[in-house]
């Protein structure tokens, strides 16, 4: 292999390492937008789920929202928010804000369906047991139903989050400097599309693996009976307290 032919093929992988900071910040931006949107979508999604399961007209409005917004692609959503909303409300959203809003609008609809099915999976008896004990329905929701429903929903939440991170890639159109925008910028300078976009693809794939692993660990940690390293760690103080109570009361 002569240096000549190597130059003509010209795969400059060193380029990636040299620009690792830019890729890193693109990744961080994508994760930040997704994470903020995840929290907001979960809150709105839960409210939509409750609305949908409740009385009319709330249930009809919630159903309408869900059916409309889960059909809109992220690309349309973000252009609509960044350019359209800005005109409408007379405020220029930053690319970060527009990305968060665009994802939240769409994913609230998905989370609503996820939470609704998780809440319906709980037996009616859970609610009744709480009420029969004299707990308020709000307290029953937060201490009895929400923890159980969240646990059921975690695998789906993980999948949604991976989807959200991938969807940030289209936010390059509004100029959000996420992974794709970073790649495009570098490509404009170096014209190394194969190297640069392979790198981008690898970043997304590795990220999906890591996130999947994290959500699996979370699922395991929250499962009952207590299971796994983190769960044991997190519940060790509780176990100590219980064992002490058993000891104290066992003697009498």
């Amino acid at each position, binding site marked *: 292999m002569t240096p000549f032919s190597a130059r003509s093929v010209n795969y400059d992988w060193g380029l990636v390492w040299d620009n690792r900071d830019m890729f890193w910040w693109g990744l961080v931006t994508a994760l930040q937008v997704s994470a903020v949107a995840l929290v907001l979508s979960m809150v709105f999604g839960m409210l939509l789920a409750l609305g949908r399961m409740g009385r009319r007209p709330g249930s009809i409005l919630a159903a309408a929202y869900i059916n409309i917004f889960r059909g809109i692609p992220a690309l349309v959503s973000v252009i609509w928010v960044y350019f359209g909303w800005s005109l409408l409300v007379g405020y220029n959203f930053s690319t970060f804000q527009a990305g968060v809003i665009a994802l939240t609008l769409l994913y609230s609809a998905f989370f609503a369906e996820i939470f609704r099915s998780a809440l319906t999976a709980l037996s009616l008896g859970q609610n009744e*047991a709480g009420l029969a*004990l*004299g*707990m308020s329905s709000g307290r029953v929701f937060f*201490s009895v139903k929400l923890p159980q429903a969240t646990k059921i929903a975690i695998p789906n939440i993980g999948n949604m989050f991976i989807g959200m991170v991938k969807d940030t890639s289209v936010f390059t159109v509004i100029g959000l400097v996420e992974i794709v925008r970073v790649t495009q910028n570098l490509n404009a300078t170096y014209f190394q599309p194969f190297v640069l976009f392979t790198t981008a693809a690898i970043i997304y794939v590795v990220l999906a693996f890591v996130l999947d692993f994290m959500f699996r660990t979370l699922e395991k940690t929250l499962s009952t009976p207590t299971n796994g390293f983190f769960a044991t760690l997190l519940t060790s103080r509780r176990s100590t*307290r*219980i064992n002490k109570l058993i000891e*104290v009361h066992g003697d009498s």
Partner: protein
Amino acid sequence: MVCALCKISAPTEQIGVSVATNAVTDSTLGEVKVELRDVRKTFGTNEVLHGINLTVSKGEHVVLFGPSGSGKSTILRSINLLEVPTSGSVKFNGVEYGPGDPTEESVIRGRPLELRRSIGMVFQQFNLFPHLTAIHNIALPLRSVKKMSRRDAEEKAAQSLRDVGLLQWSGSFPAQMSGGQQQRVAIARALSLDPEVMLFDEPTSALDPELVGEVLSVMRRLATMGMTMVVVTHELGFAREVGDHNVFMEEGRIVETGGRGFFESCSHPRTQAFMGSVL
């Protein structure tokens, strides 16, 4: 005596004290706790209770029995308003919680939440909270309803578990316990809130036969201590033993009632037919 249940009856024990306040004493005998008057319940267009009258006095043990679908659970659930009657009066300690008696002009009205805080209920399917340990199944309502601190709630929960012989299981989750143990936790959970009346809806029907005994013995102990109880059960042996007031119902109506010895003396042909089929 190593039997933890025996401790309940000892007046020096904490739970003994709390329950003893509900015990039958001469001065309180006959005081009306729960009163249902002409209670009707309709699901859709289907009326399943056709005007039920039932009085439960302090310390009394009422046993409801009858064929499946006759409305036993619906009556029980009307008492703590898990089911709101379509019409009729549901009174607890003289306070009206139901739709009310149209002939009665002015009554004190109460909120369902307050009613439920004085009435405990045990379900056929236990309904423990699966994400919480046994001790926290009991501590959660203590914190939420009695506004106890975590420490006090866990302390009291441990005592309640000890009283049903399950202290060692404090840190276990419902899925790790047998049905009989779960039901005993459920009973301990209801009792820890110091209810004035306990409702039992077929508490042993979901249990394997060999586990029925341990739950019945907790209930028997409770009855001996003078707890006011309304029990739906197919365990006629138990009913015969504790039932002060036996109510046989069919198709949403009370067919026949009687006191002790009811199972020998019942005269209505429907009651006798049912007895024959169960015994």
